């Protein structure tokens, strides 16, 4: 209540002041409280966000390596990077091919199906590719001939949201390095 009384007194004082300052012809004077609460913001932008100028930039298409004819891809279970019996057998065959073709440099691509988070799948694809690489190294292939890259779920082999499509997309592929 005391505050309200103070305010009333203050408003009267203000009114008198505003009367002193403003001359009789000016438009309605803003209450002091209004004036105190209104500030100004300069919204003109110092810089514009730099969008892409297509004409001046050159991007390279993602290079697509060719699959090595003698190297078969391997499949994984959902959310797994452990090698199945089947995968080990295929990797054994792949090791034979690599031994017979000593000059072949290979990049092992790790892939996931579309389920799961993109971020986690990048790591999962990497672990799949690494699991394949490590197994080939354990079979005597020189690690220097094998590199890995994970594409997570970015490059599905087949499209579609079926068990069949997912199973095919959970894979490691063996591509020739040019």
């Amino acid at each position, binding site marked *: 209540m005391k*505050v309200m009384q*103070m*305010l009333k007194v*203050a408003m009267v*004082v*203000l009114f008198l*002041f*505003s009367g*002193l*300052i403003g001359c009789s012809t000016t438009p*309605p004077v*803003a*209450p*002091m*409280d*209004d*004036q*105190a*609460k*209104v*500030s*100004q*913001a*300069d*919204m*003109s*932008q110092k*810089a*514009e*966000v*730099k*969008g*892409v100028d*297509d004409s001046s*930039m050159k*991007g*390279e*298409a*993602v*290079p697509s390596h060719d699959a090595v004819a003698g190297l078969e891809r391997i499949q994984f279970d959902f*959310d797994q990077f452990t090698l199945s019996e089947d995968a080990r057998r295929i990797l054994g065959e792949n090791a034979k091919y690599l031994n017979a073709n000593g000059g072949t440099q290979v990049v092992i691509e790790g892939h996931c199906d579309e*389920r*799961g*988070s*993109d*971020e*986690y799948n*990048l*790591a*999962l694809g*990497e*672990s799949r590719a*690494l699991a394949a690489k*490590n197994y080939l190294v354990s079979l005597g292939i020189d690690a220097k001939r094998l*590199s*890995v*890259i*994970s*594409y997570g779920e*970015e490059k599905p082999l087949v499209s579609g949201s079926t068990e069949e499509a997912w199973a095919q997309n959970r894979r490691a592929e063996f591509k020739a390095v040019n």
Partner: protein
Amino acid sequence: MFVRWMLVLAACLALPWSAMAATEIEISAPGEQSIPLALTQFLPAQGPQAARVAAEINEVLDADLDLSGLFRFVSPAAFLDDAGRISLLSNQVNFPQWRMLGAETLIKGTYSVAGEQLVVEARLFDVVNRRLLTGRRYVGEVKDVRRMAHAFADLVLEALTGEEGPFSSRIAYISNLTGHPELWLMDVDGKRPIRLTNHRSIVLNPDFSPRGKEVLFTSYRANNPDLYRKEVYSGKEARLSYKPGLNVAGRMAPNEREIALTLSKDGNPEIYLVDISGRILKRITDNWGIDSDPSWSPDGSRIAFVSNRQGNPHIFIADIFTGKAERLTTQGKYNATPAWSPKGDRVAFSRQEGGRFDIYTIKTDGTDERRLTFGPGNSEHPRWSPDGRFLVYSLDKSGNRAIYVMRADGTGTRRLTTLESDCRHPAWSSRW
């Protein structure tokens, strides 16, 4: 002299009044209360009528304030003559008229267009107490009109809750509109999308630096998932971590001197701390399984991350200094993409259950888990607005993934991006 006197007096007056305001309108959380608000059409003060300017101001204010969940809008159809009067002073507004319509708060404003120049005057009134709560004069160009309106929406939230709104910030995301996943930036209402990269490769997983207008992201441009940083205004871009294998999920620490980053150079995805030139400072995780996707606590002492060290992907929290990690989530078999809230109290994440992802939040001590989305479709990759009021995420219920926003309690969902491209990996900037 008089003027100085008056300013002092005004400052003295403002104090008790604003203190009173805080007790009169109390808002604790979005959605819990709704204040009846009359949002009037902004009127031309000087210069020509510019229907588009007025429409944009009102469209932005309407959408932002509706999303806030704080308001119940008084139907404009019921507005009386005061809505059409250019009266921005509290001693000129016909408050009884607005009171009669049930309004407790009132937004009025004017605009003046002169060539390219635009001045917008915006005011928020307390109808019950017949006074001005806040006001601002925005000076700029016609093309700044949406930014002006967003800025006023931020101010309205500040005046009523004590905390500024996030509507002047930006959202970065990945869209394949050009045929390749590239980095894009848009306003928080999905408008004014602009493409920032032209890698024509695979660009993924953007994250803003805490204070700067700078984005970290991963790109396969150089045939490996490498970490890049890009200054939004200068367009300058640098590749900062390009070790063999993964250089993904880069998140700048609150101190902006360190980046938490997933590297697989040692034969297994692990989280490291690197400096801003990509030099490794420290390894944080050391484990046979996958460790990825870090999110900093606001004080920079801990990170939440995903690990499958106990079988399935779960959210863990690690102490940066000791490296000691504790499991945060116990439910479900697949928890991913943690995002630590800016207030520090909760972690948002997505969980796959029944073959579908939904978004949850949980307190950092592992209690009080709350489910925010209930399908249909996969709701993934949540990120907080800088004030913690909202979450942005991706949802694929309409075919392509699109970016959506909702309140932190799961209400108020709306789509921000169009469905013509696949949009994902949203990241919300700090206040711009």
